[in-house]
């Protein structure tokens, strides 16, 4: 009793658990029992949303629009014309860049018409030979940074070309080159306005929170309704998804600019605009660049997901390869996506860090030597490509474009490897699989589904109360209530079961691996590098190997989720422990603590707030991946979101389901942040 008095929270928690299990035991499962399941009062809401969206798109604010083909005025809704106009401009941009890279006729069509093309067979934009693009990228890399970057850019693009993925890679690139700058620009503008105005910041904050926890899929349905299907829709979905982190990081960076630096700018006589453009934004550069990096990563991650709504390129091919279970090809495509991500990331970083020499007195040739070099290389490559058309008469002109899947491929190697693995490990893998499902997953799933809604509320709100008082209890209760009132409570429970299983395993692995790696600076660096690399992989990549090994089961999804979600758990553990002041660790050592004692009584408690943020990330990552797991067949919320995608009336369902997932994430996010903040304050860390 004395022990419980000393630890009031433990007492509260024990009481809470007792009450929880009592409720579980007492409440009888019955459709009409409100303590068992709440009535789905929100069931009509998706329909309302559909009707509202339809009204917006087709009836709201009618305007007269001139149809140039039918040569008459038509009645149309304002919003539809606006989204159409936007779609057209985005599509035009994508196709313009795409045709510079791989050639085509659509840009010319945009200015003339199909008629013109039919009458003039010569009117076609030629592709840049791949050699030109590679040399261009190398010269750019050299100008911006030096030999290393030039080599990286050259090798990456050469790999893509030689492996026959040039065409889809350029399609993906054109899509990223449109979506990323728009996201960066929007993010900067909104981030700056949030910095300048408290009202904007307060409005954006909840939106950003939801945007960050909504699964990728749920953006797709509304986008298809408002913008249709195709490359532009993919780009728009990507922009919607990639802009929030950019806003967040811009705002964070601006808020971290020291007051004195701004004052110094003012004392130099800067106008408001100069303060913003020459002082604030450049000083916040570090965070803003992380934002840019995130945008590029998101764009490439979305390259796969956007292919659901018609974006062409590597992502689409990857999806096909996955569906056909062609693991080798999927792997090669995955590498291409990662390579593009890495090259774009490094180029943008180098560009931002570029230095100028003011006192170099250079001639015109010297100043423009890189541009001149490019022109020379351009000419040489074009000549080569022309010669190529003579050499490879009638065949494939390898000096111009290597067509899709006509390059080298190592697919047979991977396929053989996978076959060998299945042959030799099949029985043990299946045994493991079955054992896990029967002994762990099924019972856990049943336990989650067997929880009366009243007990769930008691547990979650109780934890909220213990962690952050009545306010936290109400906040998490509110999130939960929304989900409980929809018709997908059982689905949400399954999502929660999968996510919590994955989180428990991921956090355990992350804590152990992270703690071990953090003992030594070299190991930490290596581990962080591995985390960085793994994080650049689009989430889909993780599904490739597991499907092959475990087939289409919950096990596959869970293993993919665990691999993916272990990354932040490990990273934050390492960062947290490495940031424990060395003097404290030394004090521990001088007190004669063993390594284990030091880990338990110094490292972990001090790193705890940071590790908790890692756990938070782990939860979010796990939720995202569980939803993406719907691709290979689960029966949770993700599956329903996927269904909403193919449903014409799916916008309401898609949004509501997305919100359900977001709210699970936000509830956990709220609890962890409150707890971590309290611990931080207690430890005197700010």
């Amino acid at each position, binding site marked *: 009793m004395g022990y419980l008095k000393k630890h009031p929270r433990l007492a509260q928690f024990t009481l809470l658990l007792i009450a929880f299990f009592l409720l579980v035991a007492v409440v009888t499962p019955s459709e009409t029992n409100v303590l068992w399941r709440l009535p789905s009062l929100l069931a009509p809401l998706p329909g309302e949303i559909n009707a509202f969206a339809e009204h917006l798109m087709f009836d709201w604010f009618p305007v007269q629009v001139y149809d140039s083909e039918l040569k008459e005025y038509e009645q149309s809704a304002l919003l539809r014309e606006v989204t159409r106009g936007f779609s057209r401009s985005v599509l035009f941009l994508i196709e313009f860049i795409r045709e510079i890279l791989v050639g085509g006729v659509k840009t010319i069509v945009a200015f003339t018409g199909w008629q013109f093309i039919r009458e003039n067979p010569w009117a076609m934009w030629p592709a840049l030979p791949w050699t030109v693009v590679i040399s261009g990228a190398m010269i750019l890399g050299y100008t911006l940074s030096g030999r290393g970057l030039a080599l990286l850019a050259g090798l990456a693009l050469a790999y893509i070309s030689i492996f026959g993925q040039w065409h889809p890679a350029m399609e993906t690139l054109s899509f990223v080159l449109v979506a990323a700058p728009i996201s960066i620009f929007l993010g900067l503008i909104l981030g700056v306005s949030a910095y300048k105005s408290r009202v904007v910041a307060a409005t954006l904050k909840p939106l950003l929170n939801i945007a960050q926890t909504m699964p990728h899929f749920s953006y797709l349905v509304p986008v298809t309704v408002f913008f249709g299907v195709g490359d532009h829709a993919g780009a728009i979905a990507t922009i919607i998804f990639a802009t929030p982190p950019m806003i967040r990081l811009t705002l964070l960076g601006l808020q971290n600019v*020291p007051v*004195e*630096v701004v*004052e*110094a*700018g*003012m*004392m*130099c*006589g*800067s*106008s408001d605009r*100069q303060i913003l453009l*020459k*002082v604030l934004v*450049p*000083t916040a*550069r570090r965070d803003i660049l992380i934002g840019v990096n995130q945008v590029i990563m998101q764009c490439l991650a979305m390259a796969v997901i956007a292919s659901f709504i018609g974006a062409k390129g590597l992502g689409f091919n990857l999806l096909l390869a996955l569906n056909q279970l062609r693991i080798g090809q999927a792997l090669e495509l995955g590498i291409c996506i990662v390579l593009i991500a890495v090259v774009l990331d490094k180029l943008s970083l180098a560009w931002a860090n570029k*230095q100028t*020499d*003011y*006192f170099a007195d250079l001639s015109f040739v010297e100043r423009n030597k890189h541009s001149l070099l490019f022109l020379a290389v351009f000419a040489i490559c074009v000549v080569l490509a022309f010669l190529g058309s003579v050499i490879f008469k009638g065949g494939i002109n390898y000096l111009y474009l290597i067509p899709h899947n006509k390059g080298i491929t190592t697919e047979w190697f991977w396929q053989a490897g996978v076959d060998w693995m299945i042959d030799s490990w099949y029985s043990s893998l299946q045994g493991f699989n079955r054992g896990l499902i029967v002994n762990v997953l099924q019972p856990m799933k049943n336990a989650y589904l067997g929880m009366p809604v009243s007990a769930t509320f008691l547990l979650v709100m109780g934890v909220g109360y213990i962690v952050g008082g009545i306010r936290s209890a109400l906040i998490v209760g509110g999130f939960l209530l929304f989900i409980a009132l929809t018709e997908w409570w059982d689905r949400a429970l399954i999502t929660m079961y999968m996510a919590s299983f994955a989180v428990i395993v991921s956090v355990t692995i992350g804590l152990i691996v992270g703690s071990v790696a953090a003992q030594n600076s070299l190991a930490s660096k290596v581990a962080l590098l591995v985390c960085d690399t793994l994080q650049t992989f689009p989430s889909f990549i993780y599904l490739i190997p597991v499907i092959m090994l475990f087939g289409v089961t919950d096990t596959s999804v869970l293993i993919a989720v665990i691999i993916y979600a272990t990354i932040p758990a490990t990273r934050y553990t390492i960062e947290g422990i490495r940031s424990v002041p060395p003097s404290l660790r030394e004090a521990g050592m001088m007190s004669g603590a063993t390594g284990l004692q030091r880990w338990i009584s110094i490292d972990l408690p001090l790193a705890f707030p940071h590790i908790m943020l890692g756990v938070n990330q782990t939860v979010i990552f796990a939720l995202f991946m569980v939803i993406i797991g719907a691709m290979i067949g689960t029966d949770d919320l993700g599956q329903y979101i996927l269904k909403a995608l193919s449903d014409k009336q799916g916008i309401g369902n898609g949004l509501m389901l997305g919100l359900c997932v977001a709210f699970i994430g936000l509830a956990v996010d709220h609890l962890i942040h409150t707890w971590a903040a309290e611990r931080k304050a207690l430890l005197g860390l700010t």
Partner: protein
Amino acid sequence: MSLDRETAPRQPVIKCSSVYKIFGDNANRMLREANGNVDAKAFQDAGCVVGVNNASFEVHKGEMLVVMGLSGSGKSTLLRCISRLTETTSGDIHIDGEDLLAMSNRQLIELRRNKMGMVFQSFALLPHKTVLENIAFPLQVKGMSTKDSMTRAMEMVELVSLDGRQNYFPRQLSGGQQQRVGIARSLAVEPDIWFLDEPFSALDPLIRKEMQDEFLRLQGVLHKTILFVTHDFSEALRLADRIAIMKDGIIEQLDTPANIVLKPATEYVRKFTEEVPREKVLKIKSVMDPLDNTEEFSDLKVSQNAIIETVAESVLSEKKAVAVVDDNGNVVGSIHASNMLYILFGKDDTTKVGG
């Protein structure tokens, strides 16, 4: 300097009259009701913090006024009011006769671009710009061409002896070097008024001493009108023409270093001066007698800028008065051995003080 003031009474460069800065939501109303008698306690109870409380003073051309106070005394707030980085709650501030508080944003920008320079405690360099670019920044903000601004910035680099490091980034420099960049930046536009907000507080003691010497050397060449904020009393004594000692927003005493040391006006000021070895901080100038032509001098001559301690022994060994000379060798005053004894050992405040 005070001598200038006597010979040519001119318009002060900075003139503050009854400046108040009160932080808090209902500061204006509180101040109106207080009717000029601001009681910090009463304001605090009402949720206001008194930053500057009824500050009035003038700073003249070429003069260095050091504002000294502990943290929270309002010294930086006062500086920020005069540079208008903070809006003053009440009172008047005139810069070269112009009403600073009535200026529009545009006028203020013009004023800062041409007349003001400021050095910050934390250096406040732009992290993404090199030394050269940082120094050229105020020039480029004014609209000067890249070529001209870089040439001018390079001159400033040489002035603060950073040649060879002009392409370094601030993070690659030591604290002392960073502050040299800060100083060079603040001087690039050749301002008339130079604000320094605890410029050397973040530096190691040895570097601080070196930077103070460097600063005195620069001021010896440039003769700027300076407002210098510090919490270090000995720094104030070393540098100042006049010192303003602040406590809780009130200027406790504003006087020459010698008068502050020798005649502390309040108990608070006395506490600072108690520990100060006068002979180590005061110059002969501040304790000499005015020139009296009837007097007979010994052969020894001492410079008016000599620190007392360095010449005390030789002055004490002279029977007659010792002549005090300025930089050009003109006799400007005298000092007696008996007077020297007072300064070194006397505890009372009856010592005759010149100045």
